[in-house]
């Protein structure tokens, strides 16, 4: 199959075939991380710039390790300690970085649209590692991969995504991706955290967590940010945890075989408790592990580790 994409900005632009291709390669790369020498020379001589203008542990490390396992050189830049602090805009910074001929820029940015603007203006590949409330496609890819890895299929899977849907790029990218894989998505949140026009996403929407929970094969909890309380999206942590938190009693109400996911970092005691993260249903750490394989596959495809991949 020929990989024709220059950039990865959102899940909408990827076809199911593209995603299957990414998954196949990810599966073949998983084994590398179990070797004693965890490195293959595939991307030797390629340069990957990691531009993280927003805090990140998992995604940033995952990309960096992924690039290194494939022997690419990585350069990491974050907002603090860069010229961003001196007022340089991201667009100017990117123009400067481009003169150093990177092959790929992985970008995390607090506002929507910048990865797309960079993709339109720069010749190298741009991979969106999360932009504002827009998209986080690599997270959705690893989530869907993890679901398929666990169940062996995605068709007809009931996926419940609960939490701050309005401000979640993860939820959005997952809805776009899961639709391509025949899953049924239900979004659960108080009305204040449901974005406008959500009825047009092709997902079910409800405000009652308990009524939606028993049917779900996958329960994906989203991180709830404390600043949303000040912004009047909900009354406080106590009430949120009571109505929308995944705790022991709710874990017990889940369907047999159903799993718990979370993109991290978790806010313990708010949207999720130890009982849930440490339950046998939790695949949260598998998600992180799969994330590495997915990002290796993406770098491989975008950096032309073989323009033509069968």
């Amino acid at each position, binding site marked *: 199959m020929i990989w024709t994409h220059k950039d990865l900005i959102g899940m909408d632009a990827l076809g199911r075939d593209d995603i299957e291709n990414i998954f196949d390669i990810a599966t073949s790369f998983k084994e590398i991380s179990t070797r004693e020498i965890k490195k293959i020379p595939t991307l030797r001589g390629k340069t990957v710039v990691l531009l993280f203008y927003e805090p990140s542990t998992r995604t940033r490390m995952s990309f960096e390790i992924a690039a290194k396992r494939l022997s690419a050189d990585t350069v990491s830049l974050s907002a603090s300690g860069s010229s961003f602090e001196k007022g340089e805009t991201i667009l100017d910074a990117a123009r400067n970085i481009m003169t150093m001929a990177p092959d790929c820029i992985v970008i995390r940015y607090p506002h929507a649209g910048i990865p797309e603007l960079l993709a339109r203006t720069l010749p190298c590949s741009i991979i969106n590692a999360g932009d504002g409330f*827009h998209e986080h496609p690599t997270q959705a890819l690893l989530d869907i991969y993890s679901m398929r890895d666990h169940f062996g299929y995605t068709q007809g899977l009931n996926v419940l995504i609960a939490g701050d849907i309005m401000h979640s790029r993860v939820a*959005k990218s997952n809805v776009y991706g899961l639709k391509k894989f025949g899953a049924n998505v239900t979004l659960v949140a108080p009305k204040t955290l449901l974005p406008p026009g959500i009825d047009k996403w092709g997902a079910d929407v409800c405000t009652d967590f308990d009524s939606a929970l028993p049917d779900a094969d996958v329960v994906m909890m989203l991180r709830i940010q404390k600043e949303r309380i000040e912004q009047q999206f909900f009354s406080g942590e106590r009430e949120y945890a009571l109505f929308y938190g995944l705790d022991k009693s709710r874990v017990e109400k889940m369907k047999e075989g159903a799993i718990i996911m979370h993109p991290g970092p978790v806010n313990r005691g708010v949207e999720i408790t130890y009982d849930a993260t440490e339950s046998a249903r939790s695949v949260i750490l598998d998600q992180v592990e799969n994330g590495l394989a997915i990002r290796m596959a993406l770098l491989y495809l975008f950096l032309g580790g073989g323009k033509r991949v069968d």
Partner: protein
Amino acid sequence: MWIKGGRILDPATNTDAIGDVCIEGAEIASIYPGGKTAETNDVIDATGFWVMPGLIDMHAHLRDPGFEYKEDIYTGSLAAAAGGITTVIAMANTDPVNDSPAVTEYIIGKAKEVGLVRILPVGAATKGQKGKELAEMGLMKAEGIAGISDDGAPIEDAFMLRKILEYAATFGLRVISHPEDKSLSASGVMNEGELSTRLGLSGIPKAAEEVMVARDVIVSEFTGLPVHITHISTKGSMDIVKRAKEKGIPVSCDATPHHLLLTEERVSSYDTNTKMYPPLREDQDRGALIEGIKTSVIDVIATDHAPHARDEKDRDFDLAPFGVIGLQTLLPAVIKLHLEQDIDLMKAVSCVTINPARILGIDGGTICPGARADITIVDPNAVWTLTGDMIKSKSKNSPFIGSAFKGKVVYTIARGRKVYEDGS
């Protein structure tokens, strides 16, 4: 000066006829329907052209004093002249704010020094546009302001609005209200809806505008005093104004060319030249605005010309300032609306000439003996595409760069003097 053989379009006198216009000094001396042998050598051959009153742009930000890096009175005058605009109503959110006779005097003095078009400042409604204390409206009026507005910093307090309407009426000044409930527009950057969610941008609900339009209408009815509501953008606002006018409440309103010609789909590219307040709305809203012009619910088409420097706009959509320029695209947009949306030409022209003049109580906006010799001559058949280097403004933040237009200004005459000639 003698303008020969053009099609004279003057909604104020209901004139649509081929004829000659004779100008003496700064005034129009006579109109000769059918034409007459010119009595001077200073002749403009307007055969095949439209001859209309010089345009009045009721809503522009010229940024001078204080933000001269965005625009100043000279570049703003050049852009206006190139756009066939002979009177610019300049909003008060400068630095310092135009809330005192000294600032008004500065603006008018500098405009006269530049000497291209008439610039009439709007005075702030409140000191510093802070919404707390009334500005010196009477003293500013004596220096020449043409209206009152806290545009850019909407009047949130209904008590203040009442006092502003009453105090402005005392001096015969019209109040221009920028309808925005800041608590509802919050951190929004585009129209709220499915598209804003898809793009990951925060939305500005239509209600942020409509609740204030409704409030303005109610306060106008209650005080019996007129209010002009600027840059209306939604179908809901149109419905409110329509009902108000039917009830005889003294409200008037305007819409911008960009809200009449573009929709929120344009934001999909994250082009910051599609970011303005109010935001571009949906097609049904645009349709309602066009209907509003046809039914005279909308009185005026005004630019809300809002220059911003390239470095301010060349960044994230979330962080870029609101506003687009419009002086050179006002008349082309008006012609486009006539040609593509079946808006009667005289009706369209009235929205940029006599209607704003009447609302503000200023002279101009008509071609008749004794009137200011402010005339715009247009080649209605010229087809052209706007490019960045055609823009005379200091800032180039136009959403119409790359758009094709039919109809081009060939001469702009202000107070009997050619202030713009195409190709020169």
